[in-house]
């Protein structure tokens, strides 16, 4: 390449950089967010929230692509196959929710401990390392997709294990970042003050990080491999994540409604007892059909049937406290999403989980769209909602604790976003449930679970129309997401009223 060509490239790159800087500055001037309102710790929290929202977008986008392929199988065939779209759909979900949770903890830890975050610089470095790693992993998913049947593929491309597909190098990176996060949490509480919330959070994070390592090994024996794989997937989403949400919920009820600490902490312990008491051995409902002994049918069936109980307790807790405080609070969208969480968690994780958890019905429903139906409502109801509530809490402070109660300007936006997102996910859940029923009857009960039976069920008109409805409601969810982002960027802009002081009653 001659020098003039090289100069041209450099000029283009510089011009592109300059242009994006101008766009970024224009954007910053438009949103009018003022970071001086936030402590250094909370500035790190909003970085996590920002990436969480970008990944939430990716989750919905790749979900829509995969949903389209159910109707038009030729769509993006051998370019972005279903397996790639579906992998990014579920991975983006897991990672954005983790980003959200980490952000929530960074958000409340200074308030809860009464001191500044210890090791914040390291925390910031960890954020950039994690974000860089996530970007690289997604690029490899998109551009490389698959590899030969060798160890190097599992180390560098993907591990091919649902939910925890990230290649091994990224697993190690995730553990390192989690350790830094854990250090931030423990060192901050040690320097400031401990509390019941702090104690539960710390022990939960030990379990969260420790369990991840259970999924970092390759095994030829698929029964053993799936055994440990469920340790990660189940004990994360049906135990440690639920407790983490309990912790976040406890803190936010104190802040939003001024509920007394003694009450939320007692509730938190009750929830931990019920959640771990049912969820740890409830793991057994994943051990019905993977080759493990028969006693899991009894253990898993019994304990997983108890899993909805703590979720009922959480509904009672949230609704009772809101009612007792006559819904007086300083952030209406956040409280609305907290209430959505209580119900979404109960219905999605509790009711939808219970419906097919006993082995007598699960033998028909396992591995059908039933699981997808449950997955959609449970992940959204239990985890997306609480993160969105925190996005609203964050944006309120980012604008300098402005008024976000009754009479907020353009309140229709957050209300419609709430309605479209919840309606969209519920619609997908029902459509997938119908498909799941149809599969359970036709593929399993009637046809005897052969490949022929599978396709008879897939080609059935009621399955086909369910897939169309799922895509339609996916579109509704997407519309809700766009509105949510627009609302988050604009709510409270130009607001001069301060949020009211919420006092304990």
């Amino acid at each position, binding site marked *: 390449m001659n020098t003039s060509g090289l100069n041209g490239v450099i000029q283009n790159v510089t011009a592109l950089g300059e242009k994006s800087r101008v766009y970024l500055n224009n954007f910053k001037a438009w949103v009018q967010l003022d970071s001086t309102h936030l402590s250094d710790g909370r500035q790190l929290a909003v970085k996590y929230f920002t990436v969480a929202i970008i990944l939430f977008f990716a989750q919905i986008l790749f979900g829509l692509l*995969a949903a389209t*392929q*159910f109707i038009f*199988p030729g769509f993006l*065939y*051998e370019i972005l196959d*279903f*397996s*790639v779209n*579906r*992998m990014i759909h579920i991975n983006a979900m897991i990672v954005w929710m983790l980003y959200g949770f980490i952000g929530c903890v960074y958000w409340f830890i200074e308030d809860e401990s009464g001191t500044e975050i210890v090791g914040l610089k390291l925390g910031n470095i960890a954020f950039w390392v994690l974000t860089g790693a996530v970007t690289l992993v997604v690029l490899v998913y998109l551009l490389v997709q*698959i590899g*030969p*049947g*060798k*160890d190097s593929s*599992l180390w560098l491309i*993907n591990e*091919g*294990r*649902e939910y925890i597909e990230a290649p091994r190098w990224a697993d190690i990176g995730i553990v390192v970042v989690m350790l830094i996060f854990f250090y931030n949490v423990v060192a901050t509480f040690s320097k400031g003050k401990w509390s*019941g919330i702090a104690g539960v959070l710390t022990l939960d994070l030990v379990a969260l990080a420790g369990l991840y390592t259970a999924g970092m090994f390759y095994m*030829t*024996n*698929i*029964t*053993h491999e*799936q*055994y440990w794989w469920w340790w990660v997937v189940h004990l994360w989403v049906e135990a440690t994540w639920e407790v983490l949400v309990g912790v976040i919920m406890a803190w936010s009820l104190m802040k939003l409604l001024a509920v007394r600490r*003694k009450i939320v902490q007692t509730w938190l*312990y*009750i929830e*931990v*007892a019920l959640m*771990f008491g049912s969820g*740890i*051995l409830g793991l057994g409902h994943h051990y*019905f*059909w*993977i*080759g493990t*002994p*028969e*006693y*899991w049918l009894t253990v898993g069936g019994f304990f997983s049937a108890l899993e909805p109980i703590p979720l009922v307790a959480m509904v009672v807790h949230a609704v009772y406290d809101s009612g007792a405080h006559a819904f007086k609070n300083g952030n209406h969208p956040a409280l609305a999403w907290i209430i959505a969480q209580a119900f979404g968690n109960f219905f999605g994780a509790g009711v939808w989980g219970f419906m097919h958890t006993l*082995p007598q019905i699960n*033998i028909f429903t*396992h*591995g059908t769209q039933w699981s997808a139906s449950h997955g959609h409502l449970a992940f959204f109801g239990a985890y997306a909602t609480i993160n969105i509530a925190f996005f609203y809490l964050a944006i309120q402070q980012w604008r300098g604790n402005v008024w976000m109660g009754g009479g907020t300007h353009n309140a229709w936006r957050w209300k419609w976003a709430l309605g479209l997102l919840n309606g969209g996910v519920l619609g997908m859940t029902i459509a997938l449930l119908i498909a799941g029923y149809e599969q359970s009857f036709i593929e*399993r*009960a009637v046809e*005897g*679970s*052969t*490949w*022929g039976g*599978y*396709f*008879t069920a*897939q080609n059935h008109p009621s399955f086909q129309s369910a897939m169309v409805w799922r895509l339609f409601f996916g579109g509704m969810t997407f519309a809700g997401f766009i509105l949510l982002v627009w609302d988050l960027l604009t709510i409270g802009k130009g607001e001069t009223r301060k949020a009211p002081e919420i006092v304990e009653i």
Partner: protein
Amino acid sequence: MNETPLWASESFWKKTAIWVTAGSFLILVVLTMDSLSKTSAGSQRVPAYSVINKKIDYQLNKELRKSMPVIGENEFLFGKEYTEEEARQLVDLGKKTTQAKNCMNCHTLLGNGAYYAPDLTKAWLDKGWISKEMREDMMVKFLMDPEKNARTFGSNRKMPNLNITEQEAKGIIAFLKWMSSIDTNGFPYNFKTIEAEE
């Protein structure tokens, strides 16, 4: 009057939470050790990898009303008898390939995965391979060039070409044959094998 009863006190529930969590976890650890020993390759429930040298079928256990695996006489894979170590290597190559090709994000294995393509748990025994004589050859060809040998059952869903080599294809088939011999407590329900009479 102001005294909190035990059932509503913070410290009572704190202790309960700790004991319940520790107790449940301890039981899980004990059950895990038992389950892992009962499901190691070569156990009653999960046969040794050399089971790929044998005929595998399912029979309904009338008392339990569920299909149980039956390991029969010799039925060599690709006309060769594998030693235990050779069989392990071949199954290992197949298992690794299924992960590297991300099979689980379209198919289910032991019922776990995605629901865009059929379950692979008993794929080796599926009637879709028409006859036992044609099965091995059809499977190798399908895996190596799924587009040309597409089997869509009227759904228009085609498996993409995943650049699977012949050796990898043989590995996958060995892995599928071995997996089909695992006792899965009767899952998938009412499965009719390629051996079953109409």
